[in-house]
Structure formats: C-alpha cells, structure tokens
C-alpha cells in the first residue's frame, strides 16, 4: 500500500510574530516545526503501514530548503521517503500550493493521501481538499478515526455537534483532526536511519510547471499586528464580595449579560 502524506513546515506555536521592513511577516530567526495536524497524519500513515504489514510512506512538502528539517523528522518517525518541492522565491496561495502538490502526486503511485485538516500558520484548511479536487478523488476532512480495508477507507469525522462515519473508495484524501492518534517521538535509532533515507529535491521545472500555471488567485495587500489587549481590572476583596462586584460590572459596565 502506497501512502502519501502532505506535510507543511510552520512557525512554532510559541513564535513571536513581527513585521519586517517591507511590512511582511518576518521569517528570519523564527523556530520552525512540523504542522501539528500533519504530525497526526504522519503517525496515522505509519500505523496504517504497520497494520497492513506492508507498504511505503512518502512525505511530500512544498517549501524552502529549511523544510528538509520537518521532512527529516517524519523520516525519523518512520516514513520511508521524502519529496521536497522548492518553488523558489514566488508568491503562492493555497491554489498554487495545491496545484504543485497535485502535479507531483499525479506522477506517483498512491492508495491513500493523508494531510492535516489545517496548517496553524497562515493555513486555511483548503490545500488538502483542493489537492483531492484536482486529482479527482474524494476527500474526508477532520477525521478522528480511520480504518482501511478492501479498497475502502472508513473514517469517523467531526461534524458540528457530533461525529459521523463516512466510507469512501480509495484512493482518497483524508485530513487529520486532533484525537486521531498520539504521534510518536522519533527514536535515536530512527534519527540515525533518517539521515540515510532518500530525500528527493525538486524545482518547479522538475515538476513540470511554469510560474504562470501557479499564479495565485488571492493577493495579500497588507499585514498588521493586533493592538495588544490591555490588562483590565483585578477585582479585589473576599471571594463573595469580588464575585458580586464582577456580576455587577458585567451587567452595568461591560453590558454583556
């Protein structure tokens, strides 16, 4: 069974965000991690392979050269191969990224494609779905459970106010929600092994795309930082007194209850 995982490198969740002199998000000096939802996807891919007793897990990312770190981490967790497409210094939106991913994937063999349901940086929960649409295969988003048998995937997915069980024929794209699994940590042995695993690096030209074919549909106009929230009132007094005063303030001052 050939399993592909689309994986994005994102800013660390603790990262402080500042703007550079051009008013764009400063990327220098920010520590980078594998998108947490994609960790679930990698873990699920490894479990699928282990359960099936055979298979191959390939992790794919569109990003700069530093993205190799996130791909290596996936290899250290146990993935077999990595593919990095470095599009160079071009503006991308989700349409562009999905177009690149789908183009690379269309030249590969695959039974199932896993991804995160959302990237936590500028992510917008659409790249994986777009990839499915381009490849003309079904998508199931936000899965918390997955079983694969007889050319079908049966997944439990989150819906508002509950969950549903959905069956799709393979190949399909499935995106991970928290709760799907607990990702493993790479072992020392895994980290050593990862260094020798294949990492294929491609450019846009290698993929067979020209810049014009991935021109973004969405254009960023400007970036800004939020006004820092001002710390408010600490209400003094004994619990009973403070609680009474809080109730009054919520009603009379904030007018929110």
């Amino acid at each position, binding site marked *: 069974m050939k399993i592909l995982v689309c994986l994005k490198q994102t800013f660390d969740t603790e990262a*402080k965000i500042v703007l550079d002199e051009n008013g764009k998000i400063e990327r220098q000096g920010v520590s980078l991690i594998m998108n947490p939802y994609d960790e679930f996807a990698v873990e699920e891919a490894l479990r699928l392979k282990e359960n099936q007793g055979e298979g191959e897990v390939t992790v794919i990312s569109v990003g700069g050269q530093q993205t190799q770190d996130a791909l290596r981490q996936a290899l250290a967790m146990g993935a077999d191969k990595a593919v990095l497409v470095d599009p160079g210094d071009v503006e991308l939106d989700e349409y562009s990224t999905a177009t690149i991913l789908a183009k690379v994937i269309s030249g590969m063999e695959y039974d199932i494609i896993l991804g995160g349901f959302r990237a936590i940086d500028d992510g917008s929960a659409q790249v994986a779905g777009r990839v499915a649409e381009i490849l003309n295969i079904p998508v199931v988003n*936000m899965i918390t459970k997955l079983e694969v048998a007889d050319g079908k995937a049966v997944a439990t997915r989150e819906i*508002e106010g509950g969950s549903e069980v959905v069956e799709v024929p393979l190949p399909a794209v499935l995106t991970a*929600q928290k709760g799907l699994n607990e990702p493993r940590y790479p072992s020392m042995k895994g980290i050593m092994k990862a260094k020798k695993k294949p990492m294929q690096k491609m450019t846009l030209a290698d993929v067979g795309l020209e810049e014009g074919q991935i021109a973004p549909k969405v254009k960023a106009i400007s970036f800004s930082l939020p006004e820092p929230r001002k710390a408010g009132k600490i209400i003094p007094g004994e619990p009973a007194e403070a*609680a009474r005063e809080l109730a009054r303030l919520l009603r009379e001052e*904030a007018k929110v209850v």
Partner: protein
Amino acid sequence: MAKGIWVFAEQREGQIKKVVFELLSEGRKVADQLGEELCAVLLGKDVAGLVDSLGEYGVDKVYITESDGLENYTTDGYTNVVTDLIKEHQPSVFLLGCTITGRDLAAQVAQRLETGLMTDCTGMEVVDGQLVFTRPIYAGKAFVKASCPEARPVMATIRPNTFTAEAKPKTPETVKVTPDIGNIRQVIKDIVRQVSERPELTEADIIVSGGRGMKGPENFKILEELADVLGAAVGASRAAVDAGWAPHSMQVGQTGKTVSPVLYIACGISGAIQHLAGMSSAKCIVAINKDEEANIFKVADYGIVGDLFEVVPILTEELKKLTAQ
C-alpha cells in the same frame, strides 16, 4: 460580467445557522454599495419553509434545491449542486460561514471553479469596488488583508460572531432548482449527535471555560450551572481535554476551536499562548485564577484572583439574581 452577492444558507436539521443571518446582514450592505443582488443558496430536504427566516435579513432572492440526497451534508453532493448553480448564474461573490461544513464545502467549490478562497475572515470591506477581507493568521498574532482581484466568484468563509445580524424584512423571490446531485463518493454510514441544549461553541455569545484548575471532570458541573444561567456554551483548555475531563469538541485554542464570543469566562486556565490563540478575539474576557501571575490576567478585562471553587458558585447565584430582574 459576474454579478450577485451569494451567501450559503447552511442549515442543520431544519434550522438555519446563526452565522447565515450575520452574513446576509453584512452582505446586504455590500450588495447595496456595489449595486448587486443579495442571494441565498439553500440546500436540503424539505427546507422551503426556511425561506421566510432568510427574508428577515434582507435577501433579494433564494435559490432552493430540495432533494432526499441533500438531507445530510456530503462533500460531493453539496459541491456538485453549488458549483453547477454558480456556473449557471455567475455571481461575483460567494460567502460561507466558517463552520465545519462551510469550510469543507468552500475548499472544494473554490478549486472546482479555480478561484481564490480566503478563510476564517473577521472583516470585509469594499475598497475601490473590490472586496477586501481581513483574516487572522498565525493564530491571531497577525492579520492580513487580502483580495481576489481577477478570478470569480470571490470566495470567503467568515468567522461566526464577526458581524451582527440585523433584521431588514423583505419578501424574497424564490427560485426552485432541480438539482443534479451527481456521484457522491462519501457514503455516510452513521451520524452521532450529542444532544445538547447549549449553543454551539463557535456560535455562542457567552462561553464559560475550564482548565486544569477544575481538578477533575465532576467539577465541570459548576461551570455548567453558570452556563445555564447565562445561556452559555462550555469550553475547555487542552490540559482539561488531554486529561480526559472534556471531549476535544470543547477544546478552545490553536489546536481546538476558534471562538469569538461577546463574553469569555476562563476558570482555572493559565492563559498559554496556544489557548489565547483560540479566544483572544472575544469582546470581553473574564479570568478567575488563584495565581495572580497567571498570563490570562494580561488579556482579561476583569479578573478575580481567587479559588474558582469559591468564586464561581457565588458568581452563578449573583448572575441568577441579576438576570432575573
């Protein structure tokens, strides 16, 4: 030329989602500024009765598509019908609520139409005849303003509670559409709904949330009592979810739900950056925490330094008295 501001009239079990009314209200303003029609797209089984409620919010036209096959949302079924409608009528804008369904549908429709999609937006304005959207990125630590200058329709999902629903009654024209649902590859085997009297976390005006300071699942009862008085939803920090005290569907934060209530009451939550990521757009934040150094106090409008087990029950009693008046 593409014309018309369209809103996806998401419904669940015969009820229009609140965010739809918010989108129609704001969409009305945009439609008037651009001199275009405001239309709603309503899909489902036996949903014609919902048209009146859409009319309350100033919609000019409602496209209704009814079919047994549309009773439950499926990605393919809804994508097929909605993209066919858009291809036929060529609206300039298509807005959806940033709900689980809205997000799922928007990505597929946008790709099939090869257009741009801005998700989880918290602002929309007309600048030189173009719609410009504001989206929080990096978990609310920055904002980007963006537009889709050429491709049509411009698509966006809007975070619930961003706009205010304002009644502007109208009798909309209704257009019945016979759908071609096409091939649905997602087969729904089972649906489990947790019956709850409470509002949806992402739509709630008020949220009462508990963290590790709750000490155990049984203590969430005191938050529920407070929530009952306020008609609020109950949320949780990741620490509480990971401890198994609350389901993940209740988690607020970077790897949970993003919420934008009018009032957010954080009880026994330290205010880690990943938690703030999910709730910092709340209009009023209250923190109850026994550690005066807790980070949550840096963002709270009102704070009480104290034991939540003492404070919360009294707060509940006080609010019960006040709201009964």
